[in-house]
Structures are given as structure tokens and as C-alpha cells.
């Protein structure tokens, strides 16, 4: 009798849980669903800038942490063990000379078919911005790759002289790298196997769009100064310009238009790539092997408010959960949904419903970057940093978040 009673009781709990999950879509997200993980062994570490990626082969999250001057340490977080490792400074790993100083990795860190993690380097500070091509200025950014298991490092050479490489992506089939230079916004196509670097020319205006991305076929997407998608069409080796600009809120200033998109997340199963624009719109791209593909305006990143212009929230990050919902952290560079608060938001593309999941003071979480970084367990990763003072000093940390379950550090 006791056994029957227990069975009945357990079945009841399970039914209740199932009912709750069905009724509300998912279990309640609590503070147990998110963890902030420190980078150890690099006390100078000041910030991270979109330089995060996941190695599916070796189950590691790889991040570049910079002192925002001349040192970038390459960290990996082992998802299975929870161990964070400092693998050394890229200047040493890449055998750079003093005049080849690099202040940041600003690109995503993307996995190649060979298991290497590919990225590019950036001047990213006043010596580049002002001195430019002067001998005391910036020599130029490099393409690089690092192997998360063998720990081997390969310097793949420079892009354009004097220019940073703000972002890269890879065609996994051919290993071709796509990049965008800074400050001139030149679109680069680099074949590391043949060491052929091609500059396809300037596409942008005065403020360089920071993000490009590829689709499942290895085509690459960027924007022009009208915020029109520009697709590097792999078949045909050509640039294809969208006829129309990406959706934008009325009144979006020109400097927001020219800066293109800030983040993306891919849902291969449903053939959709979600993008966030610098003007705070969420757009769905349904890519095609040939041609630009269908674009759908999913509205703003937050519910409209009379306290902030719709185009104003800054969202330099985007991830997609296993539940199909988008997760992003709004805030940074003085643009917030809630004044001086950074929020983690959920957006359901099906219902277009926004929810604020967490609110943080800027000295807890000031800004987060990173696109489409998810491990096999559905944990989402962002490269976060907390503001330390008004002098733009900050402390970086890794954010691990899972909307469906508790996370471990």
C-alpha cells in the first residue's frame, strides 16, 4: 500500500512539473541558471571584446582577455571539468615583435574543421586611432589560430598594413577566412592554405560595422553604409548587395545605420540566422545558398518605453537557447534599457514577447559581448565585464547561462 501511495505521489509531482512546463514553457529561471566565472592568472585583464567562441571538438570555451594596451591572454574554459586555463599571451605565442603590438582580439573565436580556433587581432587603442601609419602607430592586425588540445599556435600573417581586423569568420568546407579591416572597413578574403589574401574594397562609412557571419554553405554576410546586407557569394566569388536596407526604427541616427549589426545567433535546424542591429532591431535572415534570402523584421530588442528611444539600446551579444528563444544582455557604452542597469533579456521569435530575466548594477555587469556561443549541454556563454570606475576601467569575466537548468561554474 505504501509503495502504491509513493508511486501515486511521485506520479503526481511529475504530472505537476509537466503541467507547469507545458503551461509556462519552461522552468522558472533563477539566479541558479547563471554563473559568473573569473579568468585567473592575468590580473592585468581589463576587458573582452566579442572574442569568445566554442570548440565543439574539445568542449571548451575560448576567450581572449586584454589589458587594453599590449597584452592579450588566451583563456579556455573546459566545460567538462569547469577549469579555466590561461594559455599565455598571443604576442608570445605568435612571436610578435614590439612594433607589432596588439591591444585586443576583437573578432569572434571560431572553430575550423581542423579543430583550430581562428581569430584576428586589433590595435584598438589611441596609438592606432591617432598615430595610424606612423612608425609609432599600428603595424596591422593578424589572422591567427590556436589548437585547444594540442595547444599549438599558428600566426597566419597580416591582413592589411596599418589596419586592424575587427572580425572574421570561416568557411568550414574550404577553410577560407573572411575579415573586415578597421578603420577603412575593407572586406578581406583570405585562403590560409594558399596564403592568398584579397582585399575586396571598402564597404563602410566612418564607423566600422564590427560583425560579419557565415551561413551553412560558407557564404559570408556583412553590411554596407546603408545597412544593406552584403553577401560574399561563394559560388561565383562575388559580392552581392541587398536591394533594401535592414529594418530600422524611424529616426535612427546615421551613425547607428552605418554601424550595421552588433551580434547574431544561428538556428541551422530551422534555417534562420537572427541578427541585432546597431539600431536595436532584431531581424531574422532565412539564408539561401544563392542570393540574399528572406529578411523578417522581428521588432525591437525591448518593449517600447518613453524613457529611451527605440533605436537606443545597445546589444553587442546574442545567443539562442535550446528552447528556440533568444537571450541577450542589453547595456554598455552608456545605452541602457533601464538607467544604469544591465539586463539579460529573453525574446521569443514566435510570439515576439520580451522578458527581462535579470537586472544588474553596472558594477556587477556593465557590458557583454559575443555571438552564438553555446555548448552541447545548451549552456550559453557571453564575455562580460563589470565597470570599476568612471575611467573606463573594468574587470572581465565569463558568463555561463542556461535558461533550462541550473549551471555549474
Amino acid at each position, binding site marked *: 500500500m505504501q509503495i502504491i501511495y509513493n508511486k501515486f505521489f511521485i506520479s503526481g509531482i511529475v504530472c505537476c512539473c509537466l503541467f507547469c512546463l507545458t503551461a509556462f514553457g519552461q522552468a522558472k529561471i533563477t539566479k541558479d541558471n547563471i554563473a559568473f566565472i573569473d579568468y585567473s592568472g592575468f590580473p592585468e585583464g581589463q576587458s573582452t571584446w566579442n572574442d569568445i567562441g566554442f570548440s565543439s571538438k574539445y568542449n571548451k570555451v575560448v576567450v581572449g582577455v586584454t589589458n587594453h594596451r599590449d597584452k592579450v591572454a588566451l583563456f579556455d574554459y573546459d566545460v567538462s571539468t569547469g577549469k579555466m586555463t590561461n594559455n599565455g599571451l598571443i604576442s608570445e605565442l605568435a612571436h610578435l615583435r614590439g612594433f607589432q603590438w596588439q591591444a585586443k582580439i576583437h573578432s569572434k573565436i571560431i572553430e575550423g574543421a581542423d579543430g583550430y580556433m581562428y581569430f584576428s587581432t586589433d590595435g584598438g587603442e589611441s596609438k592606432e586611432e591617432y598615430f595610424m601609419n606612423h612608425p609609432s602607430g599600428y603595424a596591422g592586425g593578424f589572422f591567427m589560430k590556436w589548437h585547444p588540445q594540442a595547444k599549438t599556435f599558428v600566426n597566419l600573417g597580416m591582413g592589411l598594413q596599418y589596419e586592424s581586423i575587427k572580425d572574421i569568420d570561416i568557411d568550414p568546407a574550404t577553410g577560407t577566412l573572411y575579415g573586415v579591416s578597421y578603420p*577603412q572597413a575593407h572586406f578581406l578574403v583570405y585562403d590560409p592554405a594558399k596564403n592568398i589574401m584579397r582585399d575586396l*574594397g571598402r564597404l563602410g*562609412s566612418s564607423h566600422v560595422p564590427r560583425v560579419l557571419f557565415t551561413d551553412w554553405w560558407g557564404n559570408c554576410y556583412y553590411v554596407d*553604409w546603408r545597412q544593406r546586407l552584403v553577401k560574399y557569394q561563394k559560388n561565383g566569388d562575388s559580392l552581392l*548587395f541587398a536591394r533594401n536596407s535592414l529594418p530600422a526604427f524611424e529616426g*535612427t541616427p546615421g551613425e547607428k545605420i552605418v554601424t550595421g549589426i552588433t551580434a547574431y545567433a544561428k538556428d541551422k535546424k530551422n534555417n534562420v540566422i537572427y541578427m541585432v542591429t546597431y539600431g536595436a532591431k532584431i531581424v531574422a535572415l532565412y539564408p539561401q545558398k544563392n542570393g540574399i534570402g528572406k529578411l523578417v523584421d522581428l521588432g525591437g530588442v525591448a518593449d517600447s518605453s518613453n524613457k529611451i528611444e527605440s533605436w537606443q539600446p545597445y546589444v553587442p551579444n546574442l545567443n539562442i537557447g535550446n528552447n528556440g528563444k533568444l537571450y541577450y544582455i542589453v547595456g554598455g557604452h552608456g545605452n541602457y534599457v533601464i538607467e544604469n542597469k544591465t539586463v539579460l533579456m529573453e525574446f521569443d521569435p514566435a510570439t515576439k514577447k520580451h522578458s527581462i530575466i535579470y537586472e544588474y548594477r553596472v558594477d556587477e555587469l556593465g557590458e557583454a559581448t559575443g555571438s552564438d556561443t553555446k555548448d552541447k549541454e545548451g549552456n550559453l556563454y557571453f564575455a562580460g565585464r563589470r565597470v570599476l570606475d568612471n575611467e573606463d576601467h573594468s574587470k572581465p569575466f565569463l558568463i555561463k547561462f542556461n535558461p533550462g537548468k541550473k549551471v555549474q561554474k
Partner: protein
Amino acid sequence: MKLLLLKFFAFAALVFIAAPSFSQYTYFKPLEGFGIELSLSNTNLKRMPMNRNSIASLTVIGDHIIGGTAAKENLAPYIFVASLSKRELLEIKDLSEVLPGQRSIQSGFFRAADNTLFAGTISNSLNNGANPSGHLLQINIGTSGSINVSDLGMPEPGEGIFALTGNSKTNLLYGITYPSGIFFSYNISSKTFKSFKDIAPTLADLKVLDQEFHQLPEEYLSSALVVDNKGMVYGSRSINKIFYFDPADESFHTVTDLPEVWGRRTLGRVEAWATSMDGRIYGGNAGDGQLFEVDSATSKIKNLGKPIMMNRLRGLCFGADEKLYGIAGASPGYAHLFSYDAENEGYTDLGNPQFILTAPGIEQGIQWRGFQLRTITASEDGKYIVMGEDEALSQLLIFPVGK
């Protein structure tokens, strides 16, 4: 006491505002400066497509800004007309519709007294690597901006036209061919060419230029010519020399060296000229970016130094304020707009210009920063300076100058 306090706060506010501004990028962006969008791929708007629009020749007649472009290999260039007052592109002409096989119009324009324009082309290479011929063009712009192009033939078989100027008084054009560097004249009335090999690089020159320093013709030929008020035609020849041609007896005179930085004389060539209202001639040396002045009475030159650290000096023109404006520097570095006032200021480095670009679809205006500038010219009254970009998608940048 109250006044003192106010003064203190005003001073403190000024310091607060000024301090960050010194540490930030400053651009040359006069409020009245503007851009005109000329190039955009896949659009219903009248625009030039990608890789066919580097603005290699530029002039202004009345309200019309007229340009000739350079294209990437195997593509054809355009001639365009934009309106200074309407701030928009009016007309474009695909040169391949008139004269197939050409790649660039980079000689610069010569404007005759009746506003007829002349320019030369460089052709695309043939599949066998041979050079087909460039042609001399006559271009007439209608009052509404319509473009009429006539082919006047070629100065030399297998040669393009690298530089062009002329003399309205004598109805003669003068040019330099590419890649051989042959000087030629063209009589507009009789429609006849005449070639001279006097200033073409010699075998001894080529041994240095090609075999020792691995320089290409576009790196050692004079890409600009000018006629002084006595009718003499000035240009540069290898190695690092200034010459003039006397049309009276068709004689060539190598008069002096170009200013050089030690060790780099092989790079010396003229790529820009400008003549002031009082007839003084200023030139730009591509090799190391020096500005110089030619005394046509004595044929001596004065080295006026360098506006910026880099080499190249791609364009020069005078504004209504009597200042000389120029473009210094080029890829792989960054072009700087500069001004030169011989009497007072000397050089002023204006850096990368950044003006507002407004067009249908971007009515709110976007900031357009000029990184690679190729050409510069002034409106007829000198009140506007017009600059053409050298990009895969090139635009015009324009600013007013006061007297």
C-alpha cells in the same frame, strides 16, 4: 566676488570641455562640407557600380562636376556629371558603350576655351598580355549634364595615355603615353598626333628602374603635365628630373632634379601641378611627397618641404582664399587633405575630411570619412574644393572656402 566665481566656473568648464577634445580624433568637417554619393551597387538610383568608379580625373564647369573614373582590370570606366548646387549625381556614361576595351580615364581633363574637355584612356590588357591602345577622348557636357563622347584616336599603337594637358591659345594638347612614356602632341584643329621619344626612359634608365629597383611604369612616369604662361610644357622624366618642352622649336630641356629624400631619387616623379593666379607653378613629387615651386623664368625649383610624413602628393588646386589645397599620402597609408599658404600659415594638415553624405534612403545623413583621396579640384570661382575618392565604391567630398 560673484563675478570672480563665475569666471572661475567658466574657465573650469572650458578646461573640462577642451581636455577631452584634445585627446579625441578631430576631423576636418566644416558644417558646410558635404558628400555626393556616386557609387552604390544594386540600386534603382543612378549610381556607378563597384570597382568601376575610382575618381581619377576631375574638373568643374559652372555647376557641373565632371569626373572620369578608373576601373579594376577587365572592367570599364565611367564619365559622370554631378551637380554642385543640387548635390547629386546627374548623369553617368559607361565608356564601353562608346569605346570598348578601356580600363581608366586617369590622365586628368584638359578644358579648352569653349569648355570642350579632352582626356586620355588606358586600356585593359589583352589575354596574351599585350597592351592594346588607349585613346584620346573629346567630351562635351550639355547644359542639363548630358555627356557626349567622341573618340579622337590614339597617339601610339599599344600605348595608353597617362598624362594630358593643353594650351588653349595654340589649340594643342600634350600628353605622355603608358607604359613607354612617349611625349606626344595633338593638334585639335588638324586632328593630328605627333610623337617624341626624347623624354621616354632610356635603356640605361630602365636598367635602374626595372632591373635594379623593380619599379613599374605607373611608379616612374610623370602622371601630370602643365603649361606655363610662356607656353612651355613641364613634366618629369626618369630619373628624378624636371623637363620642359618648347613648342616653338619642339625641343626638350631637362632643367633640374626633383626634390628628393636621400636614397629615394629613383621614386621621383611629378603627379600633380597647380598654377596660381599670378602664374606661379607648384608641383607635387610622388616619390616622397614634397611640394615644390617652379620658377619658369629661371627653370629652377624651390623645395617647399612635405605636408605630412608619407610619400605621394596626388592632387593640387587653388581655392578662392588663395590657399593651395592638396592631397598628401595614399594607400597603404591614409590620405591627408592639406592647405599651404606661402605668406602666412605655411602648411596646415587637415587630415581625413569627414562630411555628411545625404541621399534618398539616407536622408538623416551619414558621416563619410575620406581615407583614400585621388583627385582634387576647385570650382570655377574657387569657392568650393571638390575631392574624388579612390575606393571600390568612391564618392565625392566637397567643402566651401571663403576669400
